[in-house]
C-alpha cells in the first residue's frame, strides 16, 4: 500500500498545467518510468527516442501499442504522435510494438469503479486516478472499454512532442543555430536559411541527448491532423486485398492446423478415435490440446477434413445443459444471498410503490447469450524451437497472452516472443487466450516449423465465451403524470470474474457490469433503485462490445419508457425533464431536433427514443420504423452523443454507424441457445444480425462540449435495442420485453 500511495501522490502533485498556446506537460519521467521496450530489439542504425518513436536512416516508425481490431486505432494513435512530432500524414509506418508494461492502459479500470460517469466530484476523480496507479503497477497493456483514445490522447502527443524537441536540440547542436530560430515541417528541421535537416539524419544525435523535462503541446487551434478527416493508413491495403491478417501469414516450412475441442466448454475429452483422421490425406499428425485434439496437416482444408472425421467422446458440461435450466438459475438469483450491488438507492421505494392512487407497473425482461463471431475466425501462428516460442496472433491482452503461452509451453515468459497482429474483427473475443494456448500446444508438439492454427466457423461459434444472458424484474409507479418510483432488479452472471478467472486472477467486490448502463443513468426520479444480483456462472462468459451496458440499456430504458407512457408524458420531453446531467440533456435535445421529434408521422409508422450513458459517453438515439404487411422495417436512426472532442470525423461516423448496426442487428435477430451443454448455433445461417437491405439511414451528430475526451467504439450500442423496441411499441402498441425481437414480431 505504501508504494501505491507514494506513486499516487506523485501523480497528483506533478500534473499538467494549461498555458497560453498549449498545454505544458511536466511529468514525462513519471509517465515513462519503465525501460523503453524498443531498446531491446533495435537494428543497427536504428534509434528510439521514447517507447512510441523509432527512427532508422530510411524512415520513421510510430508505435501504436493497442490492438487494431478494425476500429482504426493505429491510425488514430499515430495521428496523435504525428501531430506533435510534425511528420506528414503517411510519412511514417505504424506498428503495434512489443508487449510491455510501458504500454499500460491508464484508463482501462476507470469505468470499473462505482461512480457514475455523471459524477465528476472530488472522490470520484480521486478513485479514478487511483485506478491508473493499479494499471501501471500491473502493467495492464489492454485494448478495450473504448479507452484507447482517452488513454492515448495526452501521452501519444507528449511522445511526439518530446521526440520533436530532441530532434530540434540535435539540429541546434549540429548547426549552431538556437532552437528558438529553428522550426519543423513534415519530418525535418528547417533552419532560418531554409535548409532541411531530415529527422532520419538527425535521429542518432537526438537519441543521445537528454529527454526534456517538459514540453508544450499545441493548442487544438494549431492542429493540422487531429480533428480533421484523414485517410486511414490501412484503407488502401484493405481495399485491394493486400492487407495481411494473421490468417494470411505464410512462412517457409509452415504447416496448417485446426482443432476440435469439447463444445461443452470445460467438459474435457473422455476418448478420441482418430484413426480415420490420421489416414486422411495431407495429415501430418494428430496431437492433444486442452479439451480435445489438434490436427496438423499440409493444407488448412485438409486439416478441416481430417478434423471432421475425428470421433470424440466429450465429457459432460460443467454447467446446466440447456437454456431452460440456465434460465431457471437466473430466475432463482433474485434473492438476498445473491445481491451483488445496490449502487443506486434513492428515496423509499416500497413506500412510493404503495402510494395511494398511483398506477403500478411491473414487468420482466430478458436478454440472450450472444456470440462475438468476428469474421476472421480465431487464428494464430507459432514456432517452438530450442526452448523458445515465437507467436504471431491478434490479441487485446498481449502481456497476458505471453503468460498463458509460456504456461502452455512450460517455459518462462522471457522465452516467448509475441508479435501482436491486427485482426478481422474482435468485439471483445480476442481478450481471450484459448487460441493462443492451443497454437502453443501444437507448436510444442510439432517443433521446428511454424504452425498456423485456423478455427472453423463451427469451432468459433460453439467455443465462444458469449455475452451473458440476463433478466430484469422491474416495478414502478406513476401518479399525476409523473414517475414516482422505479425499482429495477437485474440478474446476470459476472463477466469480469469469469474472464479474469481464466487468467488465474480473482476480481474482488461487486461486478459493475451486472448493472452498468442502468444504475448510473442521470434521471431525477424521486424513488429510484437499481439492484444487481449475481447469477452463478453457468456457461463461461466474456466481454462483448459495450459489455454490461449492451443489454442493460434495453432492460433499463424500455421500462423507463413504459413508465413514461403510463404517466401520459412524451417519451423524449419527459427524459429531458427528468435529466439531471447537462451533457446528457444536450444530446437528448439534439436528437429531438435532428429527428423532428413531435412532428406527425404517417399511419403505421412510429418513433422511439432511448438514452444510455456508458463509457462516459451520453448517447441518445431515435429510431423510426414502419409496421408494413411484410413486417417491421427500420427506416431511419438519429444519434447524438458527446465524446468531448472528435479527432477524426470520418472514422467517428463509421464507428458510430457500425455500433448502431451492431446493436440493432443483434437486437432483431441474434441469440445463442444451449442444448446438451452446447451452443446450438454453429454458423451464420443461425446467428446473424441485419444485412444491408435491412440497414436504415443513420444520421449522426457529435454534440460539441467541453467534456473530457472519450472513445466511441462501444457507446452507440446500448441505446440501439431499446430505441428500436420503443419505436415498435409506438408503431404497433406491442411492448416486446425479450431479445431478439424477431421472436415476437416479424421483420421485413
Amino acid at each position, binding site marked *: 500500500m505504501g508504494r501505491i500511495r507514494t506513486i499516487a501522490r506523485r501523480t497528483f502533485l506533478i500534473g499538467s498545467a494549461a498555458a497560453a498556446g498549449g498545454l505544458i506537460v511536466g511529468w514525462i519521467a513519471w509517465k515513462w518510468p519503465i525501460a523503453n521496450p524498443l531498446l531491446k530489439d533495435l537494428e543497427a542504425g536504428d534509434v528510439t527516442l521514447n517507447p512510441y518513436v523509432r527512427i532508422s536512416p530510411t524512415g520513421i516508425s510510430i508505435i501504436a501499442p493497442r490492438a487494431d481490431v*478494425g*476500429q482504426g486505432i493505429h491510425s488514430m494513435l499515430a495521428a496523435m504522435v504525428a501531430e506533435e512530432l510534425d511528420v506528414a500524414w503517411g510519412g511514417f509506418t505504424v506498428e503495434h510494438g512489443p508487449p510491455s508494461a510501458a504500454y499500460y492502459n491508464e484508463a482501462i479500470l476507470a469505468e470499473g469503479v462505482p461512480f457514475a460517469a455523471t459524477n465528476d466530484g472530488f472522490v470520484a476523480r480521486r478513485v479514478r486516478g487511483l485506478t491508473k496507479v493499479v494499471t501501471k503497477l500491473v502493467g495492464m497493456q489492454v485494448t478495450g472499454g473504448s479507452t484507447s483514445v482517452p488513454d492515448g490522447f495526452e501521452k501519444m502527443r507528449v511522445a511526439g512532442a518530446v521526440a520533436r524537441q530532441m530532434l530540434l536540440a540535435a539540429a541546434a547542436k549540429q548547426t549552431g543555430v538556437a532552437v528558438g530560430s529553428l522550426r519543423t515541417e513534415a519530418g525535418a528541421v528547417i533552419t532560418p536559411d531554409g535548409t532541411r535537416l531530415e529527422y532520419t539524419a538527425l535521429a542518432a544525435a537526438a537519441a543521445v541527448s537528454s529527454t526534456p523535462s517538459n514540453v508544450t503541446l499545441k493548442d487544438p487551434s494549431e492542429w493540422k491532423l487531429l480533428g480533421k478527416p484523414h485517410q486511414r493508413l490501412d484503407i488502401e491495403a484493405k*481495399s485491394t486485398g493486400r492487407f495481411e491478417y494473421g490468417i494470411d501469414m505464410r512462412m517457409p516450412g509452415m504447416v496448417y492446423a485446426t482443432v476440435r475441442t469439447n463444445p461443452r466448454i470445460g467438459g474435457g475429452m473422455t476418448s478420441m478415435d482418430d484413426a480415420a483422421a490420421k489416414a486422411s490425406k495431407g495429415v501430418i499428425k494428430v496431437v492433444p490440446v486442452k479439451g480435445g485434439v489438434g490436427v496438423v496437416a499440409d*493444407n488448412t482444408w485438409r486439416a478441416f477434413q481430417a478434423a471432421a472425421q475425428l470421433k470424440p467422446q466429450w465429457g459432460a458440461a460443467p454447467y446446466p445443459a440447456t437454456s431452460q435450466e440456465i434460465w431457471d438459475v437466473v430466475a432463482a438469483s433474485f434473492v438476498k444471498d445473491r445481491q451483488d450491488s445496490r449502487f443506486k438507492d434513492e428515496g423509499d421505494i416500497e413506500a412510493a410503490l404503495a402510494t395511494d392512487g398511483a398506477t403500478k407497473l411491473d414487468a420482466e425482461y430478458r436478454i440472450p447469450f450472444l456470440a462475438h463471431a468476428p*469474421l476472421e*475466425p480465431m487464428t494464430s501462428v507459432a514456432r517452438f524451437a530450442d526452448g523458445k516460442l515465437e507467436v504471431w496472433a491478434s490479441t487485446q491482452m498481449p502481456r497476458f497472452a505471453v503468460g498463458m503461452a509460456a504456461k502452455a509451453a512450460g517455459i518462462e515468459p522471457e522465452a516467448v516472443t509475441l508479435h501482436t497482429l491486427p485482426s478481422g474483427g474482435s468485439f471483445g473475443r480476442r481478450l481471450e487466450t484459448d487460441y493462443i494456448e492451443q497454437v502453443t500446444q501444437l507448436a510444442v508438439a510439432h517443433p521446428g516449423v511454424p504452425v498456423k492454427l485456423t478455427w472453423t466457423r463451427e469451432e468459433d461459434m460453439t467455443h465462444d465465451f458469449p455475452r451473458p444472458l440476463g433478466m430484469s424484474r422491474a416495478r414502478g409507479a406513476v401518479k399525476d403524470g409523473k414517475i414516482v418510483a422505479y425499482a429495477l432488479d437485474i440478474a446476470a452472471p459476472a463477466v469480469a470474474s469469469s474472464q479474469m478467472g481464466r487468467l488465474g486472477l480473482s476480481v474482488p467486490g461487486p461486478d459493475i457490469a451486472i448493472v452498468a448502463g442502468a444504475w448510473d443513468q442521470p434521471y431525477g426520479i424521486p424513488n429510484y433503485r437499481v439492484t444487481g444480483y449475481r447469477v452463478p456462472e453457468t456457461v463461461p462468459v466474456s466481454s462483448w462490445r459495450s459489455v454490461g451496458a449492451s443489454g442493460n440499456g434495453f432492460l433499463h430504458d424500455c421500462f423507463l419508457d413504459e413508465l413514461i407512457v403510463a404517466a401520459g408524458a412524451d417519451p423524449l420531453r419527459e427524459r429531458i425533464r427528468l435529466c439531471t446531467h447537462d451533457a446528457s440533456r444536450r444530446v437528448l435535445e439534439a436528437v429531438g431536433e435532428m429527428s423532428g421529434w413531435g412532428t406527425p408521422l404517417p399511419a403505421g409508422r412510429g418513433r422511439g427514443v432511448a438514452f444510455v450513458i456508458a463509457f462516459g459517453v451520453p448517447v441518445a438515439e431515435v429510431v423510426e420504423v414502419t409496421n408494413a404487411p411484410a413486417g417491421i422495417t427500420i427506416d431511419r436512426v438519429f444519434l447524438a452523443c458527446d465524446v468531448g472532442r472528435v479527432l477524426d470525423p470520418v472514422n467517428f461516423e463509421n464507428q458510430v454507424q457500425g455500433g448502431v448496426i451492431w446493436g440493432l442487428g443483434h437486437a432483431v435477430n441474434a441469440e445463442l441457445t444451449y442444448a446438451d451443454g452446447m451452443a446450438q448455433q454453429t454458423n451464420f445461417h443461425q446467428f446473424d444480425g441485419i444485412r444491408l437491405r435491412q440497414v436504415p439511414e443513420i444520421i449522426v451528430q457529435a454534440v460539441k462540449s467541453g467534456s473530457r475526451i472519450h472513445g466511441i467504439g462501444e457507446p452507440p450500442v446500448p441505446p440501439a435495442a431499446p430505441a428500436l423496441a420503443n419505436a415498435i411499441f409506438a408503431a404497433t402498441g406491442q411492448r416486446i420485453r425479450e431479445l431478439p425481437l424477431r421472436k415476437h414480431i416479424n421483420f421485413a
Partner: protein
Amino acid sequence: MRLTVNGQPHEFDVEPEMPLLWVLRDELGVTGPKFGCGMALCGACTVHIDGKAVRSCQMPVGSVKGAVKTIEGLGTPEALHAVQRAWIELQVAQCGYCQSGQIMTAAAFLAQHRHPTDEQIDMAMTANLCRCGTYPRIRAAVRRAADSLGGR
C-alpha cells in the same frame, strides 16, 4: 490440375473436391479471398470466374471452368478498379476482412447492371456479411462507383 488466376497460369496437384478458396490461399498463396464461414453464407471468399461472382469456399476446384480473378487481379494500388477507388474515397473498411468479398460482389454486379437502382444495389450486396457494420458506406460506395462507371 491447371488454373488461370489473375491472368497467370498455375499448375498444381490437389484433390478435385478441394474448394477453390483453399487452393488459392494455401497452394497458390493468393490470400485476398478470405475464409469466413465455409458455407457460402458470408461472401468473404467471393472471386470472379469468367466475370461472375462465385463463393470460392463452396466451389470445388475440379469444377472450375474458366479464368479466376481475385481482388488482387481486380485492381492494384497503382491502377484501381472504380469500385476500389470508391471504397478508398469513402473509407468503407473497418476491420476490412469482408471487404475483398464485398468489392468483388459489387464489381461483378456493376458489370452486369449499368443502371442499378438503390433497391437493386441493396439486394445485390445483402448476401455479403459485414460484422463491423460498414453497410452505410458500402451502400454509398457502390452508388458512387456506379456513377463513376457512367451508369447512373
